[in-house]
Structures are given as structure tokens and as C-alpha cells.
């Protein structure tokens, strides 16, 4: 489902240039959770951003569900993100002016959203046991509730790939367990899930754990 080959990314220029990814190779199959760990600044989030087409690699190739990510124009990348990728962020990134339900429905109302996205959004809100949370604004929700809303938003277009950047980094242990359970369920539904994490519990929930060192996955 996810195929990464020879991925290179350098931050900065000239004497300050830092090659954070130096020929990363990665394959993630449908139904599999892969956890990527590493020290701060090792390039874990950068790898996730490149896989999710949020950033462009200097070299190498990425294929999601058989589609090439590299070498595409911004408009094509937007479409690809909408169809193939669901993101879950450490800081949730909910739109503070919208209620929980509206945050989920917003993704479903984007032009080009998958057919039935709005029904799926409502179904997800019910399935994620967010009773009452859907009507409240993000600052009125707990961290766990916000992350569940963010997961619902990530799934609303039924993407085959879910990328989670420190999904439990801002959660208490109980909420973290719920979120990890949800990610397991997402993978069991046939999606490829990549988690970037420092948390032992998150690594324990993964099928494989890879360490990013010196720009390579080991």
C-alpha cells in the first residue's frame, strides 16, 4: 500500500544544510501498523510529511495505493491527499471556530470529497462515541475527544493510508489507549497505518517498529 524507495530530504542550504533523510526504504501493507521511532530531530515527522504529500522530497520515490506521489503538481497532490491519505496530528489541528461535528463535516464537504462522505462522517461520529462532543467547540473538548474528532476527520474520505504524527503525545494514558485501539481498528479494516511516536504504548500497538537513525530506517 505504501512504497518508499531511496527517499532523500535536506533541510537548509549551504553550510547549514542538514540531510535528515538519506535513502529511506519503507513498505507498509494494507492492514498493517508500522511505528517509526527516533530521537527528536531525526526526521520522523519529515518522513511522514513526505509520504503524505505535504512536502516534496529531494530524491527518491513514493507510491501510495499504486499512485506515484513525486513529480506531481500542487493541484494533483491536493487530490491525492483527499483520496488516499488521512492525517492525525499531535496537536489535533481542529478549526477552533467550528464545532466537533462541523470539523468532521468540513472535510466531507470539500470539493472532490468521496461519495457518501457526509453520511460516513455522521456514522463515524456515532461510532467513535462522541456523544455531546460533536456540538461543542474544540476548546470545550478534552484532548482525547479532540483527537477522536481528528481521527474521524482523517477517515471521512475513506483513505487507504492513515498517517499519525505523535497521535498520543498530548493525551492522558486512558485517552491514549482509546486512540491506539481506534488506530488498530482502522488498520484491521484494511488500511495501512504509519505512526510516528516516542511512546512505548504506541510502539507496542504496532505490527512493526522501525528506528530512524542517520537518515535511514533500520
Amino acid at each position, binding site marked *: 500500500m505504501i512504497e518508499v524507495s531511496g527517499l532523500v530530504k535536506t533541510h537548509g542550504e549551504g553550510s547549514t544544510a542538514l540531510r535528515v533523510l538519506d535513502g529511506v526504504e519503507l513498505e507498509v501493507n494494507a492492514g498493517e501498523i508500522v511505528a517509526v521511532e527516533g530521537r527528536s530531530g531525526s526526521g520522523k515527522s519529515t518522513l511522514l510529511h513526505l509520504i503524505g504529500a505535504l512536502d516534496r522530497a529531494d530524491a527518491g520515490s513514493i507510491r501510495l495505493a499504486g499512485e506515484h506521489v513525486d513529480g506531481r503538481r500542487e493541484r494533483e497532490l491536493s*487530490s491525492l491527499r483527499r483520496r488516499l491519505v488521512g492525517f492525525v496530528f499531535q496537536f489535533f489541528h481542529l*478549526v477552533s*471556530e467550528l464545532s466537533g461535528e462541523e470539523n468532521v463535516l468540513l*472535510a*466531507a*464537504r470539500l470539493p472532490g470529497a468521496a461519495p457518501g462522505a457526509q453520511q460516513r462522517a455522521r456514522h463515524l461520529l456515532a461510532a467513535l462515541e462522541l456523544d455531546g462532543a460533536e*456540538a461543542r467547540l474544540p476548546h470545550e473538548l478534552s484532548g482525547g475527544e479532540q483527537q477522536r474528532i481528528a481521527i474521524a476527520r*482523517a477517515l471521512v*474520505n475513506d483513505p487507504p493510508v492513515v498517517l499519525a504524527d505523535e497521535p498520543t503525545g498530548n493525551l492522558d494514558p486512558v485517552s491514549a489507549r482509546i486512540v491506539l485501539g481506534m488506530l488498530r481498528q482502522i488498520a484491521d479494516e484494511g488500511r495501512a497505518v504509519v505512526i510516528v511516536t516516542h511512546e512505548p504504548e504506541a510502539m507496542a500497538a504496532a505490527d512493526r517498529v522501525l528506528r530512524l537513525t542517520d537518515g535511514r530506517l533500520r
Partner: protein
Amino acid sequence: MFGILAAATLLGATLTVGYGLRTGFARAATRADLPDVVARFDDRSRADVDRRVRALPGVQSRAYRFEVTGTRLGAAGGRTRDGAIEVVEGGRRGYAVITGRDVRGSAPEVVVERGLASAWHLHVGDRLFVGRIGDLRVAGIAVEPDNVAYPLATAAHVYLARSFLDETFGRDRTPRANVALVWLRDGASTATFLQQARATGYGLTGLRFLTRDGIGVQLDDAAGIVVALLGAVSLVGLLAAAVLLAAGAQADVQRRMESIGIQRAIGLPAAAVAGGWALAGLAVALPAGTAGIAIGAGLAYGPSEGLLSALNELAPGRALLGPLAVGLAGLGALVAGCTGWPAWRAARRPPVALLRGAELTGTRRVRRTGVPPGPLSLGVRLALTRRLRALTTVAVLAVTGSVLILMLALGSLLAQLRDDPGTVGKHYDLIINLPADQAAAVARVPGVLAAAPRYAVEAVDSFSLGEPLRVIAYPGDHARFEEAALTAGRRVRRDGEAEVGQGLADALGLNVGGTLAIALPNGRETRSRVVGIVRALDHDGRVVYVRAAPLLRADPDLASSVAVVLERGADVGAVRAAIEARTGATAKSPAAASSRDRRFLGTLSALVRVVAGIIAIVCLYALVQALGILAREQRATISVLRATGAGPATVGRVLAGAALAVALPAVAGALALETAVLGPAVTRLAAGYAELSLAPGAGQSLLLVAGFVALALAASAWVAATTARESIVSGLRSQ
């Protein structure tokens, strides 16, 4: 940067036009050495006049002219029968030669006024035909700011040396004069001089005085409307710039609250932090402001010079640099204040609060509506998050829009005055040079509703022979054919009554109930009782409407034309062809303004267009700035949208929603403001010429709506394109 550029452009244009108009008369009067008093009287021995003037108090110096009006002038560029020859002698002149040189000795040469030179494309060295004298070489071009310029003024002035006339026609042993130019000593009272002059003027007929101060006041009154209007527009632009700059700076400060906290934590004083922000603002403002002021001045200088030229005034030239420099300094101070103030407010907070990223101002959360938000409605919600800023932006756009629609209404009014005869009260559709007895035959042509003889004759007031006027007469009710707006009294109902134009009423001091004595070209006189005062643009309002019978009794040989009103829906071309076939004469459509008025109206239109264009730029700037601030504040939200698959077009729709959320209420506000306040105010100011409403029409209102929507979409596309170039990842990290 763009905002400062737009505000500076507006400022530059306003300063150029405003300073030029406000100081134009004083500049021209000083350069021309305009006398303090100009006395006009019927021809008299110069020695006799000089004896009287010498005896008056406070006279520093004096000069005399002999003015001959109604002279034929001609050149390759045009001809007129309204030439005024000013025969000048030694001493001070009272006019400034701006190109070439003055007349001198007995050379066969002439100095022409700038308006004439401009209208006929005359240059130094060209030949000008002067009636009864012949072809003369143009030696110079002059400005004499005692009246507006030809062709706005009826008479075209040329200056000849008496020594040349003496050489050509023989020396006059008792030279005569009809104009005296008097310069008073410093501190001498013009009022005292005039009082004495009237007392000693016994025996001088047709004596009239014109004072330098009086001319200045008259011209300042006219210029004051334009200056006040431009001042208001400029103030709006600067207000918009200040509000949006402050909002932008506040958003920047909010984003960099932590770094300000660090600066404060390591001991930097609050004033130093604010000063750093102010200097950063200045670094952007000075180049952008300089460029904007230069662009604005460049755009407005041409139309402004045209207007000054029509008013017989001089453009400021390099003297404009001073006010522009002051404007730039003011703009710099405004920008420094607007950028430094939020930083000052932030820096005065405890460093620990700053390090936690405290909100500089509170935001209001918008409660859910129950409607799932699409990109447009999300944009609306985001725009309304900061209600005070949204309201301020709406207010700025509403005021700017109201001035914009006022400009559109003014432009439309000027075009109507120039092109639509109905605007100035002419209801007839065709005019034909035919004897009066042909009117009945014309009336029988299919498509003609009514036809009547129309008499128009140039005459003068019997009591004040220097006052020209145009008499317009119809056998019956003239209102069916021509109907200038009535401002006092009533319409003419019978022979011996007259409606008098406001211009003539002002010149002769006529009121309803007064008597007007008209001296016709054949020397006969006809008297009428004034029953009404009308606003007429034609002939500077020096017109009289009377019944034809008394006029024909005084001059049975008066030439006439036939005025024709067509049936509603009749084809003008077909009727014209039918009339021409039947009578053999050429039928013409009436003109609204005379050719000399058209030039002035054209200049005003150009000025209004420049101002309207600049205001549209201000609107665009306000929207771009407001959206730019929104995009900066909502950078993380926009990045989340992009991360979830929203393309540049979707981001554009979000921003369009935000732009429309402020633009559409602003349109409503602008229309209300223009209808209730600006339109009526400017109508009152400009009511001297014509009774016309400046209320926005349906077309103009639709144009404003469409314009604002277009501006909102352009602004959102611009900001969306800028946002699309930013990294999604850095946007996400900004939260």
C-alpha cells in the same frame, strides 16, 4: 507594502490636485502681477481717467488699456467673433508671459492668452488673424488670472502694443482707455479705494470694478468643492490604511509574542521593542510611500494641470515637491505609529504572559449554526471571528465605496451635462435652420409631435452694456421645447415676461419682479418683467427666455430656426431624413453643452475618473490587507484544510467567503451613505449649475455590487495564490 503603495498613491493624487487648486490663483496672480483693482468703463480719454485715478488714496502704480470686444480672430486651429483685443501701453502689464516674450515696439505681433493658444494649437511664431488689422505673428503666450480661460470664458483675449497701432493707423492725439489697472500700496485698503473711486467716478459710464481678492474668493469657492471632496477621499484612504496597517501589525505581534517575551525577559525596554517594530515599518513604508506618492502625483498632474489651465491658473511645478515631502513624512509617521503601537502594548505585559503566547486581543468564538460548513461559509465564519475588525473593515469599505459611487454618479452627471440635451432642459430632438413660416410644414412630417420657430439672439443689457446675454424666444409656451430648471418665481405666461438664467441674474443683480432691458443688435430695446429665475448651464447661465412677439416687434428681421419634438418611439434618423427631403434644410440634434463647456466638463470627467480609479485601488487594498491578515491568523487552519486535500481553488473559496462577508455589507452601507449623506451634500454644493440628483441609479448600484464582488474575488485569488506558495508543514507548525 501594496497597501502603503495604494494609500500613498491616493495621497499623492490628492496633494497634487488639492495643492494645485488651493494655491493656483495666488501663484498665477503673483506671477502675472495681477492688479489689486481692475476698473472697466465706457471709452474715455486716458488723460481724464488718469487724473481721477491719481487723486485716489493708496495708489502705488497704474496702467491703462483699451479693450475692443467682438473682434474676429482666426488661425489654422479655429476662429471666433468673440475676440477681445487688449491694447497695452507702458508700465505694468497684469499678465504673465509664460512662453515667448511680450509685445514690444511697433513690431506687428501679438501675445495670445494660453486658453486660446491651447484651443487653437497656437505656438510662438505662428500667425493669427486679428480683425481689421490682419495677420500678426504670435510673440508670446500669456496668462491673466482675472477670469477663467477661453473657451470656458466667452471672449478670447489677445494683447497688442499701442505703439504698433500708432505706427499702423497713425498716432491718436487723445488716446482713449476703457480699462484701468491699479496696484495699491502695501497696507492700503481696497474698500477705501473703491469707496473713493465710486465717488470720483462721476461722469464715467458703465463703471465696474473687479478686485484681486474678489476673484480669488470666487475661484476658491469653485475649487473648494473639488479640494474638499478630494480631502475627504484622501482621509478615507489614509484611515483605511491606518486601520488595516494596525490590524496587520497586531496580527504580526500576536504571532511573535513569544519572541517579544524573550526580548523583554533578557532586559530590553518596552520602548526599544516598540521602536524596533516602528523602524521595521518605516523601512517598508518609505520606499513604498515614495513610489506611491510619485505614481499618484504623476497620474493626477495632467488632469489637474488641465483644470488649472481652464481656470487660467498656473500648475505648481517644483513647488509641489514640498507638500509631497510633508505627505511622505506624515505617511511614514502613520506607519511607524501603526506598527509600533501594538508592539508597545504587547511589550508592556509581563514577560511570562508573553512567553505563554497570550492573546493581544480577545477573539469571539462563533457558535455552531447547524449547517455543515462549505469553503465559502467557513470563510464567512473565520471573517466574523474578530467582530471588531470585521466591523472596521466593513466601515472602511462602506465609506470608500460611498465615495466611489459618488464619483460614478458625478461622472454620469458630467457626461449627461456634456452629452444629454435633456439634462440641461432641452426637450427638442432636432433643430433646423428654417424661416419661422416653415414650422407648420415641419409639424406635418410623420413622427413629429410638435414644431415651433425658435429665435436665439445675442444681445446686451441696456443698463450695463458690457453684459452679454442670449435671448431665446418661442411664439408660445417654451417649456414644451426647452425647460431649464426653475429655482424662483414661475414660468413665462404672456408677452413682456422673462425667465432669467441664474448667471445673468447674479451678474445684473436681478430678482423676480425686477425689470430687464435688452438692447438688441439692431439698437432697439425690449423690456420684460422678470417672473422666474432658472438654472441654465448654457452660456454660463446668461440666458433669457421670453415670448417671441415683443422681440419680433423690436426686430422683425430676426433669423429663426425650427425646433422639433418627436413622437415617443419615433426614429430620429427617419424623421430627420423626411424633414430634410421636404424642406431641403439640414436638421441637427441639439447639443447639451457648448463646445467650450465640453472641454471643461471633459477635464472634470478625467479628474473624477482618476479619483474613482484610485478609490477602487484603495478598496482592493483594504480587501487584500484584510484577507492577508486573516490568512496569517488562520495559517494553521488553512494548512489543515490543505492537508486534508483542499486545493488552491478551495482555499480561494474560503478566502472569497471571508472577503464577501465584509464586502457585501459594505456595499449596502456605501449605498445608504451615498444616498443619505454624500449625494445630497455634494448636490447642494454643486447646485449652481443644474438641478440634478447625485443619488445612485440602479445601474450604478449594480455596478458597485459587481465591482465589490469582483474586487473581493480578485483579492481572495491574490491571497490564495500567495498562500498556496507557502509550505503546509510550516503552516501546521505555526499553531
